């Protein structure tokens, strides 16, 4: 899939922007604060319905305006589609070819992989962030996964509420039953996904790099509704005492290892390279599952990367559309877009 055109109105500092992208390697460059990250954020919102940053939608609206509007022309195979996200006072809406739509529907036509070169440390250091990254990956290749996660989150909210308000054990049991059913689906999906991804990583980069999936439930005796229910049963008294849920997929952990040593112990540049390799392996896995490439978004492309690594990246993504940002321009990209502050004078420079 390829982004062909992008039109933004009232989004962050980008009051009005209209660009077309090449099907290959695009680099948006410009000074700090020009709005580069905001462009990727807009694209991301068209893929996932929300930002990669923890922000309210209303904060994304330009200070001097009262609504934002994002429109993207996407090519998948030979089919052109138009994706729209709009936020006004009355809410946030997604449209596919002018018809009301939702994230699950849009993901059939467009799926971005986002890598932030400046925030990757947060991803590696925070369990929550890592879980989000993995969830997004699985969402791209498994059509029911998002329903599992949404259902699970609803169940968990109800259960936590119940733990704070009553001590009806029979009622708690019934929520635990429902939770264990959804948990076994999630854990099973995650397990299979991580196996596949590890396999892909090994294919591409050898066996030094691995992801270790550590489910919160003990899976030594297998993954099933009953096995998980028994564990919830054992934790029940503790949960009642603490008035909150203490075990389940919302607490699952993913650890990254290179040569059997946790990523945490590597230098910034090394961490980033290893994490990027995992993203590239995922992109290959996506290609195998979906028969096409996603769009690869890379923010702050140049930070902590030496030239050798820049070439490594581009060599490893031969046929995929890349939309990267950086302060400086790089000749290895085939479409260079200079973003001037306030984006009023947009200049396009063809490379070569």
């Amino acid at each position: 899939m390829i982004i062909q055109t992008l039109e933004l109105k009232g989004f962050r500092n980008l009051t009005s922007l209209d660009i077309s992208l090449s099907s290959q390697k695009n680099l948006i460059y410009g000074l700090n604060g020009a709005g580069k990250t905001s462009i990727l954020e807009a694209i991301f919102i068209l893929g996932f319905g929300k930002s990669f940053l923890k922000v309210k939608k209303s904060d994304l609206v330009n200070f001097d305006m009262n609504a934002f509007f994002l429109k993207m022309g996407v090519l998948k195979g030979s089919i052109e589609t138009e994706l729209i996200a709009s936020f006004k006072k009355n809410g946030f809406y997604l449209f596919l070819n002018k018809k009301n739509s939702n994230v699950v529907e849009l993901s059939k036509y467009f799926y971005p992989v986002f890598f932030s070169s400046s925030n990757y440390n947060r991803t590696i250091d925070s369990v929550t962030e890592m879980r989000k990254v993995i969830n997004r990956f699985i969402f791209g290749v498994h059509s029911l996964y998002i329903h599992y996660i949404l259902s699970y989150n609803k169940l968990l909210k109800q259960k936590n509420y119940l733990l704070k308000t009553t001590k009806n054990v029979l009622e708690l049991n019934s929520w635990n039953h429902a939770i264990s059913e959804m948990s076994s689906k999630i854990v099973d999906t995650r397990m299979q996904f991580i196996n596949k991804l590890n396999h892909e990583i090994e294919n591409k980069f050898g066996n030094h790099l691995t992801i270790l999936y550590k489910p919160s439930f003990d899976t030594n005796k297998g993954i099933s509704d009953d096995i998980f229910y028994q564990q919830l049963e054992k934790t029940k008294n503790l949960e009642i005492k603490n008035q909150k849920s203490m075990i389940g997929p919302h607490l699952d952990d993913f650890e990254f290892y290179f040569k059997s040593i946790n990523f945490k112990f590597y230098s910034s540049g090394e961490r980033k390279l290893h994490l990027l390799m995992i993203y590239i392996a995922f992109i290959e896995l996506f290609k195998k599952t979906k028969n096409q490439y996603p769009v690869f978004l890379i923010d702050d492309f140049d930070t902590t990367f030496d030239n050798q690594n820049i070439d490594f990246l581009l060599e490893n993504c031969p046929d995929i559309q890349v939309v990267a940002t950086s302060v400086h321009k790089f000749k290895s990209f085939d479409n260079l877009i200079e973003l001037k502050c306030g984006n009023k004078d947009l200049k396009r420079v063809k490379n070569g």
Partner: protein
Amino acid sequence: METFSLTINKLIEELKKIPTIGRKSAQRICFYLLKKDPKVALDLAAAIVEAREKTILCSICYNLTGQDPCEICASKQRDTTKICVVEEPFNIISIERTGLYKGLYHVLHGNLSPIKGVGPEELKISGLQKRLGGYSVSEIILATSPTTEGNATAHYLTEILKKYKIRITRIALGLPIGADIDYVDSVTIARAMEGRTEIL
């Protein structure tokens, strides 16, 4: 909104309280009623009042009815060994449309939801337990929707009905994730009825 008179606004506000009716629909209905022949509006108002006054809950199954017990509970034609448990009265209509089910019903009037303050006491569960004492019931079919709350409610019923040593089956499992039983067509419900799975 100051554009309309107080009485018109009042009607719009009342219409908006009806499920699935938003402001726009409420306005359209309102002006439809006010512009047409007055008889249209008066007939509707009378029908609402009459239905409201004459409708009660069946004392056995808690279905909405004009007589007590309701037609289904009073019928000699129904299979009294089966009770199908549903969330709302309108779910009965969907299942009856399939023409496949000949047993009795029990309406819970909702699902468990701690967040909304709905616990077992708020649902018509004790009424169901009472029915199991006297009757020759041999199967309970749990037809709550396959939503998070619907599933939890089905699990709750399974737990408390254990002691009656009767067959407990669930029909929601064949329905797609996220689908409410009322939005699913007759064919799907029929297939689900046939393929209902044993819980106990």
